[in-house]
């Protein structure tokens, strides 16, 4: 593996933070025996995983192994896919998120998601951010909304680039800016967990670096689960890494350990580039 061409200044930061979270880590989300079926075909064969509060966990694995599927189980986005069935237990703070009494709207306000392909609403930049807070009644007066919009855009590192054009359509931004807009949109509703599905797959190294830095900063206040195909990225930003293979989670552990001393042969083969 070659080292990444872009040096990410926050790599050190991550290592520092990890030792704290490691000691006082509280399980934020946990899954037990999660199986997912698309019609008759099974995409996940029973996943047991704990996600610790204020930690960044990366899901890696070859294409089609079920990373996105698993990510979607965590805020029930799979519900929106016709023919998709989820079995097993998923909890958030110890509460079953598939319980019939649970309201998915509330769940998704707590567990936000950023998709692989940037999908801003075809509305103004301002409206993109203001939509969530207004929807959940978190802010209603213009002044409050203005503040939320600015704060979210600042955190996503987009404020300086767009502060003079908040009324322009979100779709007029570049791909990387759109992705940061989507992240800002998710932060605006202050979720506790943020799910990200390959957030940098369409971005150039500079935009990628910005988002990685953002993820690192966000991990101070949020729990983040991200899917990535870029192993340097996982190494740079994730405290923990989980390796998926053909619908199973083969191995999970500290990122350093997964990348330097994996227990499973398949993990080893994957990270050394023998397949995937």
């Amino acid at each position, binding site marked *: 593996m070659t080292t990444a061409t872009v040096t990410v200044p926050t790599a050190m930061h991550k290592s520092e933070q990890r030792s704290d979270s490691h000691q006082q880590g509280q399980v934020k989300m946990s899954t037990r025996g999660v199986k997912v079926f698309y019609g008759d075909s099974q995409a996940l064969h029973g996943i047991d995983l704990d996600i610790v509060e204020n930690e960044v966990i990366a899901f890696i694995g070859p294409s089609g192994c079920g990373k996105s599927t698993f990510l979607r189980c965590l805020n029930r*986005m799979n519900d929106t896919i016709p023919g998709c069935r989820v079995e097993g237990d998923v909890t958030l703070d110890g509460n079953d998120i598939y319980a019939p009494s649970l309201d998915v709207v*509330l769940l998704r306000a707590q567990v936000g998601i950023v998709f692989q392909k940037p999908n801003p609403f075809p509305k103004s930049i301002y409206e993109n951010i203001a939509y969530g807070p207004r*929807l959940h009644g978190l802010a209603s007066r213009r002044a409050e909304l203005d503040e939320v919009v600015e704060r979210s855009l600042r955190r996503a590192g987009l404020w300086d680039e767009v502060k003079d054009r908040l009324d322009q359509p979100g779709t007029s931004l570049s791909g990387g800016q759109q992705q940061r807009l989507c992240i800002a949109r998710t932060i605006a509703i202050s979720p506790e967990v943020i799910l990200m599905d390959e957030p940098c797959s369409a971005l150039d190294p500079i935009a990628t670096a910005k988002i990685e830095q953002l993820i690192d900063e966000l991990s101070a206040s949020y729990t983040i689960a991200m899917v990535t195909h870029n192993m340097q990225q996982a190494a740079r930003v994730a405290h923990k890494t989980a390796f998926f293979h053909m619908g199973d989670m083969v191995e999970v552990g500290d990122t350093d350990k997964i990348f330097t001393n994996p227990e499973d042969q398949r993990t080893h083969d994957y990270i050394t580039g023998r397949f995937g």
Partner: protein
Amino acid sequence: MNTITQASRGERLAIIERSLASRHRQEKRFRRLGLAAVVTGMVLVLILFASILMRGLPAFWQATFYLDIHFDSDIVNVSERPIQQEGESNADFRERDFTWQSEVGRVNWQQLIDNALAEALGEEIEPQQTRDLRALVTSAERRTLRDRFIEDQSLLGETHTIKLLASANVDVWIKGNINRDLPDSQQQLSAQTREWADHLYEEGVITNAFSTALFLNTDSRSSLASAGLAGAFMGSLFMMLIVMLLSIPIGVASAIYLEEFAPKNRLTDLIEININNLAAVPSIVFGLLGAAIFIGYLRLPLSAPLVGGLVLTLMTLPTIIIATRAALRSIPNSIRQAALGMGASKVQTVFHHVLPLALPGILTGSILGVAQALGETAPLLLIGMNAFVSNIPATPFDQASALPVQIYLWQGNELRNFFEARTSAAIIVLLALMLSLNALAIWLRKKLETRW
């Protein structure tokens, strides 16, 4: 193995080049075919429009008399119009006024016209010539004089130039829509009338004036020259209102439900198939259905725009549902995912994001559906909308005709050489209405379209 991968670089390029030539040829052929198809279509449409315009436009101008009518007080010999007395109830007053109006109606208005014509011709009219004379002005114009007098009694004893429509046959004769060399036996007007008409046309008493009758009058059987489209137009208008008010909300709502909310199962598949089939059902079948349900079972009035509107609503619904579903389906799923991921409920997702984006498509589809209904004739014949109606309908419950039905009726009128042009004129009015509806659809689409 002698595969392409083993060929030398030159050979490989040669092979690709050869295939290139054929690919280019294919492309050119397709482009030419497409262009030819478009040009053919355009030419046909142009021919259609040109022929309709050429035939119909002259009918917007109609042979019209400008006659100096003397409101002779010997002939118009009526009492004073009643004035409402103090203490008299409105009903009583109206009763007296009505009696007066009937008295005015009994005046021999025709005599005024006859006199004015004799004056214009500068001839003594023999009693046996009266028939020929009365063939000049269309019969309904007696009532025009009466109405003018009821409006303004100060006309009494005065002479006024008044616009009166020439009879349909005079119009045909003046415009040359009948062969002037035909023998008397085959002419529609007597030799005397024709001579008079020509004379008056030269004198400028008869001119081709813009025909307001075409727009303001209802259909007429006794006085063909004054047959107009107002009744049919109002009938069509009422029907369009009913169709829009019913089919757009119902159609759009069902499409939203089917596309965004309904579970995918056998039942919804069946519904979908049925809707698609309904869109292909001949419109006359909807007419039969409407006659059976609305008239036979619900006892709604025959020939009423209400029933016509309901039948056309049934016919338009599948079109609108299909167009709306297509518009909804064209909205990328990523938008729905984005909204749902933000914690929007399904209804919020649809109403905040999907519907606004699909709106231009929905409106276009709906308006085109309504425009299609506007031109529909067959189902209306089955619910009696081809009945002759001489009043402009005031409500959707009154008897009425409709524009396409009026076209059909005029097309079948025996006085071919007068109604041929009038039919085309009615077609022009209908087409103008449809084109404006389509223009509205395009305008709405442009206005509402969100740039991505």
